[in-house]
């Protein structure tokens, strides 16, 4: 009974968190589902987005501008990973690890050599202390803004996938040979995908930092696995529903994921145990054979 009541108490915040993390899951969806690229840059670009937003908010920047700056920083990180992979021909996994590792130091520097940045309760962020949040019903304002932000990203992403550039990205994931046949450099399309993906990841990091009013150097640890779990959860659980867009499935997957984590904590797990929960959940998803099938066929060289 006590488990249930504390779970119910944690539920709204879990949904809120799920929504904010869903933006990151959408980014990972691009690298993993579309490009078939296991991109570990994510573990570094998520805190990168957070530290950029946190610093700019501390300096009194408009929260929307801070978000844009986070996204831009993420795109830059994705660009570097892409260049390392495409131009220097380093394996996909290693390219991401290299940039992730470098980002640890860069994030620390950006935070002013501090592992923790806290924003004062009064700071104006996208989710709190702003004119929009003030007119929304108290207690639900962050949830509503988070919902709105995620759906704005979803709609933009859906639109993007209907553009010429978006079509090429889809083609790259569907049948890489087609990209070559269309006289395009596969590498360029990959770089574009990595940039968009990491922009979304960093945007998510910025959102989380603005919501939680803090940046913490290790907040990106396990970000990639967490997002992957969300993507796989959403795509498989809702796979049957043909009419639902993949982006919506991923968002729901991310929310469900955070709800499961909240449940685990309500059952008595400590926040420090979260990573093991993440790993266990991910393992469960993989072992249950929920891995997306048919997504990735590699056309031979």
């Amino acid at each position, binding site marked *: 009974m006590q488990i249930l009541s504390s779970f119910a108490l944690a539920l709204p915040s879990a949904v809120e968190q799920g929504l904010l993390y869903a933006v990151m899951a959408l980014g990972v969806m691009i690298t993993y589902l579309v490009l078939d690229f296991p991109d570990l840059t994510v573990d570094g670009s998520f805190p990168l987005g957070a530290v950029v937003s946190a610093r700019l908010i501390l300096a009194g920047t408009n929260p929307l501008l801070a978000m844009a700056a986070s996204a831009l920083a993420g795109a830059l990180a994705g660009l570097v990973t892409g260049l390392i992979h495409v131009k220097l021909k380093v394996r996909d996994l290693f390219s991401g690890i290299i940039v992730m590792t470098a980002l640890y130091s860069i994030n620390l520097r950006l935070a002013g050599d501090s592992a923790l940045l806290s924003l004062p309760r009064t700071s104006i962020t996208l989710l709190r202390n702003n004119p929009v949040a003030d007119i929304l019903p108290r207690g639900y304002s962050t949830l509503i803004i988070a919902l709105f932000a995620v759906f704005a990203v979803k709609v933009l992403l859906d639109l*993007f996938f*209907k*553009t*010429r*550039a*978006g*079509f*090429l990205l*889809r*083609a790259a994931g*569907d*049948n890489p*040979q*087609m*990209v*070559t*046949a*269309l*006289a*395009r*450099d*596969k590498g360029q399309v990959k770089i*574009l995908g990595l940039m968009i993906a990491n922009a979304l990841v960093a945007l998510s990091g910025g959102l989380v930092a603005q919501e939680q009013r803090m940046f913490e150097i290790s907040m990106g640890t396990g970000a990639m696995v967490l997002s992957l779990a969300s993507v796989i959860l959403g795509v498989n659980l809702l796979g049957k529903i043909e009419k639902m867009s993949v982006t919506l499935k991923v968002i729901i997957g991310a929310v469900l994921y955070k709800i499961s984590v909240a449940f685990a904590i309500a059952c008595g797990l400590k926040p420090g145990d979260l990573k093991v929960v993440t790993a266990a959940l991910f393992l469960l998803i993989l072992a249950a054979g929920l891995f997306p099938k048919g997504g990735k066929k590699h*056309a031979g*060289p």
Partner: protein
Amino acid sequence: MLALERIHLTYNPGTVREMGLFRDFSLDVPQGQYLSVVGSNGSGKTSMLNLLCGSLMPDAGRVLMAGKDITGQSEHVRARNIGRIHQNPAMGSCAGMSILENLALSGSKQKKMNLLPAVDRKQVARYKEMLAPLGLGLENMLEARAGNLSGGQRQALALIMAAMTPISCLILDEHTAALDPKTADTIMHLTDSLIHEKGITAIMVTHNLRYALDYGNRIVMMHQGQIVLDESDENKQALRLEKVLGLFNEISVECGN
């Protein structure tokens, strides 16, 4: 139009699996020629096409297009002028995209990669006009996913897509081999009319000796990385199936096929 000049190619050099395929191999396909290539399995037909398309680099020798050295040019740059159809019909379109989306995709081949809408609804009538003559009913199922099409339908779509934007060469690698005989005939017929209509240079590798003799104005037979038969125009027309089959069996026996 396309030429290979004194090509040398060895697979897995310096290993136990070392396999010298081409030694001083040359082939010149003039503009407008329609060349059929036959040969036993492993005779190097696909490797030859890969060299022409740029998915394989020779150890020595040159690749020429319209007299220009393109040996160092990457595959996607060559694809501006070369269209390629593979044996597997799935290679020529995107399974998860609709017929309409696939056509829009290939229609944007020479255009900028930008944020304009990929599908232009105004083109739908034109797409239908392109698909209707195939007689496969594709024009009435523009919203169907390419992955749900039959092999023949999908190969027809691939052909339409490859020839939608101007190309100077069409390369076909056993593109009817995965189809049942009747569908293969349909696709072969479509291929032939496409090549004539657009006046493109074509290189068609086929296992079907009948097709090789009936279509095109030159025939080449390959064996172990060498050309063992090369006849054009009247000489090709004078060739009898029995003679080609005889030669084919001779070399096939030799390599144990």
